[in-house]
């Protein structure tokens, strides 16, 4: 029955032998340049796979309308639908029946003024449709590839960041007016005071690690910020903090942060530059050295803040074996279970970022913590709405949140 219908539709197509409707050629929007899009509507009856398989599309390009044509791609009517590239065409229902192809715009031989500009020469594109009924041609049409200044498919991310930023600053200004902000207790951060006190009583140092990433990592920045707050307390307790570093830039920043911390606590004379030092950039060599340090120095407290990889368990187990009180904070989801198993307290994910604000108790910083809660409420509401609308067959919330 379906086969019969397909033949009837093919016969109808053959009777007209027309090229596909709406053949268009244009520069790909929102890209770095170099790409041209050709699109057209599928032939009537293409929604039946049997019919679609019998249709063949051939795309050719040329530098002039009457010039030499070069075949670029040949494919059956079952392929190259616009719904395969939502990053270009979005999520319209009609994308399922329309075809497209992304072509490289023609450029002169490499080394010319076009190199790295994203521009192309005017490129002519021709579409041939081969079906049992014969061949039809659409075009040729011309387009030029050029670079764009805005990636439209990322606009939803931009809008989210913009809204989140505005809410953050609104909450910060609110915090400026009313500094008594309630922030839920984070036991791991409260325990830091206890850990420093314990180290002072025992006359042993505190070991502080910044994780294995470099200074570009947001978790390392958060870790260094916490170190600043810890240094102040260590200085006021007249204790000692040891900071072996894996990255030389992190080392320089740590030394500066510690110096400022000791100065802010009124004990600049107690700061010792050698308490932060560089070990190596190699992962397991670093771990071997820090583990050795733990065994020799027997620190009273080990604080692991930042991003960790496989070494998390090696560090935390060795620290546990020395009897140190251990507090970890990481946004590395794969290593969180190891820290939770081995440490006395663990700051989970975002708590690491909140730690500096929590410890400093500055209203401006605490205000920004509220924006994280606002963001979470927004995400929960969106997830709920998205699930409901998707279940009802209208996945527009899902499409609105798609990232490319």
């Amino acid at each position, binding site marked *: 029955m379906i086969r019969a219908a397909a033949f009837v539709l093919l016969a109808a197509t053959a009777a007209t032998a027309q090229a596909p409707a709406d053949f268009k050629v244009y520069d790909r929007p929102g890209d770095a340049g170099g790409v041209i899009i050709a699109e057209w509507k599928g032939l009537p009856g293409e929604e039946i796979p049997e019919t679609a398989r019998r249709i063949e599309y051939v795309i050719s390009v040329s530098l002039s309308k009457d010039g030499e044509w070069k075949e670029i791609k040949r494919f059956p009517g079952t392929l190259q639908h616009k719904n395969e590239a939502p990053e270009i065409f979005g999520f319209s229902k009609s994308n399922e029946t329309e075809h497209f192809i992304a072509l490289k715009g023609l450029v002169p031989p490499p080394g010319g003024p076009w190199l790295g500009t994203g521009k192309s020469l005017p490129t002519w594109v021709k579409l041939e449709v081969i079906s049992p009924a014969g061949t039809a041609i659409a075009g040729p049409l011309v387009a030029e590839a050029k670079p764009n*200044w805005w990636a439209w498919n990322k606009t939803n991310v931009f809008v989210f960041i913009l809204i989140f930023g505005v809410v953050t600053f609104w909450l910060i200004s609110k915090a400026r007016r009313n500094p008594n902000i309630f922030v839920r207790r984070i036991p791991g951060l409260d325990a830091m005071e206890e850990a420093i006190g314990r180290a002072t009583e025992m006359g042993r140092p505190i070991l502080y690690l910044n994780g294995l990433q470099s200074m570009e990592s947001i978790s390392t920045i958060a870790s260094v910020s916490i170190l*600043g707050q810890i240094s102040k307390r260590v200085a006021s307790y007249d204790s000692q903090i040891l900071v072996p570093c894996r990255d030389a830039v992190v080392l320089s920043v740590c030394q500066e942060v510690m110096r400022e911390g000791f100065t802010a606590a009124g004990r600049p004379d107690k700061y010792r530059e050698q308490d932060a030092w560089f070990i190596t950039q190699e992962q397991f060599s670093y771990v071997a050295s820090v583990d050795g340090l733990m065994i020799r120095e027997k620190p009273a407290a080990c604080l692991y803040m930042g991003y960790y990889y496989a070494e998390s368990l090696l560090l935390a187990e060795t620290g546990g074996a020395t009897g140190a009180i251990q507090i970890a904070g990481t946004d590395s989801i794969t290593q969180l279970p190891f820290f939770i198993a081995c440490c006395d307290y663990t700051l989970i994910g975002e708590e690491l970022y909140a730690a500096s604000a929590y410890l*400093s108790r500055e209203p401006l910083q605490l205000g920004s913590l509220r924006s994280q809660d606002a963001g979470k409420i927004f995400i929960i509401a969106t997830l709920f709405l998205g699930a409901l609308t998707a279940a009802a067959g209208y996945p527009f919330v899902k499409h609105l949140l798609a990232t490319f």
Partner: protein
Amino acid sequence: MGHLKRTVPLAIAFIFGFGLIIQYFVPHPVSQRALGMTQRWVTIVGFVSLLLGIGSLFQSHWRKINAQVPGWGYSVVTLGVFLLTVAAGFHPKNDKPGGPLLWAFNNTYSPMSATMFSLLGFFIASAAFRAFRARSLEASLLLVTAVIVMLGQVPLGAHIPGASSFSAWILGVPLTAAKRALTLGIALGAIATALRIIFGIERSYLGGRE
């Protein structure tokens, strides 16, 4: 001096932080080149700071050797091997297979690194023992879940009806939900921290507030 220590770093953080956010949304080659350039700067700064790191390494170990603190022998070995590796790096046969640097890497660094990594096997067992002691309801749940998941991953589990599919469900549904929740929280925290740094609200990475 205060300007150099505060205002200039804050201005740099603002310009580059804000600029790189915008760069993410601008596909133009000019924007790509700017990104490439800043990444090269990071590499250059990283290399220069490596010299600082080497200086720090030497200082710290030399101090230990000089003061003959307990374990100073390790510092001698560290500095000795460091100098030996640098010397091997200048050997003319390094560009050929079997050169001294590659030999040292394959015969010393690789096995030692693998040894450290292998310790994980033992540490996982001891950590699991501590984590799975059923002393509370949460720990008991953790123990039961872990046993089910482990059974689903080993050949024995294939002989227990439902073990494999239940394990896959635990990994695919509750675990994935929890991981996604964590990821969302981390992303929001990272954005909030980035905004605090870019707009100079969070300054402790510069060494506290004035």
